[in-house]
């Protein structure tokens, strides 16, 4: 409940949300475990996601109306909750992607000459 921990999680959740949305766009409806695995794999296993943090992030996205969920069955016939992107989610994803690209572009410009000088 400490403030600092909350800050960190919020930052993480910000990017995590983007990853979740992107994953759902690429893969279609997917359950929580699947999303977690996919993020892990895409990141080249660089990101060791604590799967537990994924669920509050999913809930937040659902509460905000960017994704929706329903119960279904997995390939090997396990009952699982499937998440899929809503229309609002798609829009939000586009927006966030653009913002992210801008941010990284700006940061890249900042970082590149700095490296040369040192």
């Amino acid at each position, binding site marked *: 409940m400490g403030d600092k921990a909350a800050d960190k999680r919020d930052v993480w959740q910000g990017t995590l949300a983007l990853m979740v949305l992107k994953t759902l766009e690429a893969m279609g409806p997917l*359950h929580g*475990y*699947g999303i977690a695995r996919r993020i892990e794999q895409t990141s080249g296993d660089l990101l060791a996601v604590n799967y537990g943090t994924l*669920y509050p992030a999913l809930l937040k996205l659902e509460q*905000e109306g960017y994704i929706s969920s329903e119960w279904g069955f997995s390939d090997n016939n396990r009952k699982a*909750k499937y998440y899929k992107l809503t229309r609002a989610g798609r829009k939000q994803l586009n927006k966030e992607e653009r913002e992210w690209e801008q941010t990284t572009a700006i940061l890249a410009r900042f970082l590149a000459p700095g490296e040369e000088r040192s």
Partner: protein
Amino acid sequence: MRRLRAWFSRLGELFGKRRREQELSAEMDSHLQLHMDDNLRRGMSLAEARREAIMKLGGIEQTKETYRERRRLPILETLLQDFRYGLRMLWKNPGFTATAVVTLALGIGVNTTIFSIAEAFLVHPLALPKLNRLVAVTNGQKRPVAPADYFDWKLQSQLLEHLSAYRSLDMNLTGSGEPERVYGAAVTADFFQTLGVDPSEGRAFSSGEDELGHNQVVILSHGLWQRRFGADRAVLGKSVAIDGRPYAVIGVMNKNVEFPVPTDLWIPLALTPKEKTDRGAAFLHVIGQLTPGAGVSQAQAEMTLLARHLSDAYPLTNKDREAQVMPLVEFVEGSITRAYTVMMLVIVGIVLLVACANVANLQFARATSRKSEMAVRTALGAGRSRIIRQLLTESVLLSLLGGAASLLFASACLWLCVSRMPSYVMRLWAGFDKIRLNGWAFVFTFAAALVCGILAGILPALGTSKAAAGDALKGGRGATASRGVQRLRSIFVTAQVAVALVLVVGAALIIKGFREMTGSADTYAPERVLTLGVNLPVSRYPQSADQLVFYRKALDGLSSLPGVESVAAFNCYPLSNNGTSWTYFQVEGSVAPDLRHSPWADTQSITPPYLQFMRVEVQAGRGFTADDRETTQPVAIVNQKLAKLYWPKESALGKHLRIGGPDDSSPWLTVVGVAADVLYDWTSHVPAPTIYRPLTQAPLAASLLGIRTSSGPASLEPAVRGRIAAIDPDLPAFDVKPLDVAIHESTVGLGYMGAMMGILGLIALAVAVVGIYGVMAYSVGERRKEFGLRMAIGARPRDILWLAGRHGLLISATAFAIGLPSAIASARLVASLVYGTNPGDPLVFVGVPLALFLAVILAGYIPARRAMRVDPMVALRYE
């Protein structure tokens, strides 16, 4: 938008909790299953697969918990939880809860009461739609304005719309029933436009009706219409006689509008051409509406400029004459209302603080017994902030309960206030009929309760949570409250006792002053005197000779009534609050250079028996006799005060004085007697210099007549009216009432002050006594073991009593050391505000503190004695 949506969704999650929980569990299970499937596929053993899956998830319960926090609104959730828990705790401690709630109910209740009264008096005393845009323009100090000045202002002011004028006049209303003296107002035609109100029946004045010859129209107040005309619409168009002249009724004013306060009827203000151009005689009150966008200060700037122009143009009359703009609300409020109301607000605020301190103390005390509960909560992982929040919630809950109860208390107080006030007095008091618990009072009460809850709860919560964090589960061992907390509680109690002392002394001063003042009325034996007022209209009594004829006939008629001992005419009875009339005068041999430096005195025109009638002693010289006639030497009787002021070294008898300013040429009056001082106007603290003149030499159109009877005079009222009607059937005798009733009505406001102060003082006293008892009882309870141990090793009971009582004594002594000087200082303040108060009353300053000290010592002694009776064995066994 999205945030709001999420928030609502979370709010929704407060309900249907179980289903969501199940779903969460199912999702976690499914996640683990899927993960385990994967792990098994990779060749792990079942146990290994499961372990790895759980680890990767970061613990099932932790995940669920963070999930839950996101799902719902944790703050609201814990708040509800705290509320439920708090209610349960309060329910489990009925004694504590009841004490705290009652304390708060009283503390908040008196505040709500005074708030409601203050709101009615100072914020909207009048039910006018645009009240906050209405202003009055005066010559400063609420002084009236000369007609010519008014017309110039009306013409030139840009920032004030509908500048209208009025004057209040007492009028005799005759025709259809008994003659009646009524409150009248003569107003300009656009007066009701200024107020922004319309008659409920008929019409308002139209322009031109405030011109002579067109002005015989009248608008009735709703109250008069109901009282005298039975709310009959047929009265419209009919004619009534006012001061002997016929007026056609054209309208009935809307129910709530009575401005000026009080008014029974409005007639047009029709000034003669001479009056219209007069700048000397100022008798108009001027009101106006601020134009949209203009404020009082802008209007003031404009009026100051206009006043300066007039001052330049007419230096003879208008030199340095100012024009002051003030909100109408301020204009109508009584001269002492604001000071009294603010004083009461301050006092009840202090009472509330005392109540808060008491509740804080109760909570400190209870915290001691809840120590282990807090320790358990801390051990189970409750953070300090969580515990503080819990305790604060309980405190706020407590004060909200107190606030709810206070509304009952306040409405009872208000009912008492309004129902005990004579309706005749109530009408004179702008806003009195507007006193009630309204929406603002509810908001105020709620806010006060919240603030109280936080004020009373914050320190106990901080203290307790700190202790909880420190002590953890050590249990009862050495369980004395931390020194800091103990000191804080002692400070609270000390402050309580000190404040109680100040309040009780103040209350005693006011009550004693009031009692002495009204008690002094007994010397006049007012219960055997009946007074009545008459107001002879100039239209039918143009000459003073006519007036004297009336008075002679009336007094003869009254003296022949059965049981009447004596009769007299005078202008003002003792201990009235508005009846005196005063004048400048000049002393022969030392005439003042100008009006401003002239001495002044109250004047009374009396018939010869008056001084004896009112039991006023003639200390030197003689009283008036029937031989002091219009034509004989002009004479005067002065009171002792005036005699001492102006002839300090010699006898006043035979000296000369003259009524009026230095340039007036009224005849010299010869002083023939010196009378004892009488306090005619109680609002002036002390008897004013007074000049009595024979009615024959100084007749007045308005006068009081009095009859002294051998028994209760109230039954004579019809006969008295009959005698007056026999002389002049169109002349109402008004305010026909026994003198003791009249005196009561004139001083009732002060009586209210006294009663309220008494109640507040008692509340403060009770709270302080309970407070000191509580602190002592708890400190004794906490130190049982110590006392037991001391007794086991040989301490005598007396030592223990001293040990236990020392603290209480210290508190009392400190409280008195602070309280007494404050009481003396505030007594001066009270005396400057409340008439009749003697700030140096020795009885009050010795008696009240002594009584209070005894009460406080007793409250502390009872628990201390308990300490003395501690059985060492029992006490030590607790260890």
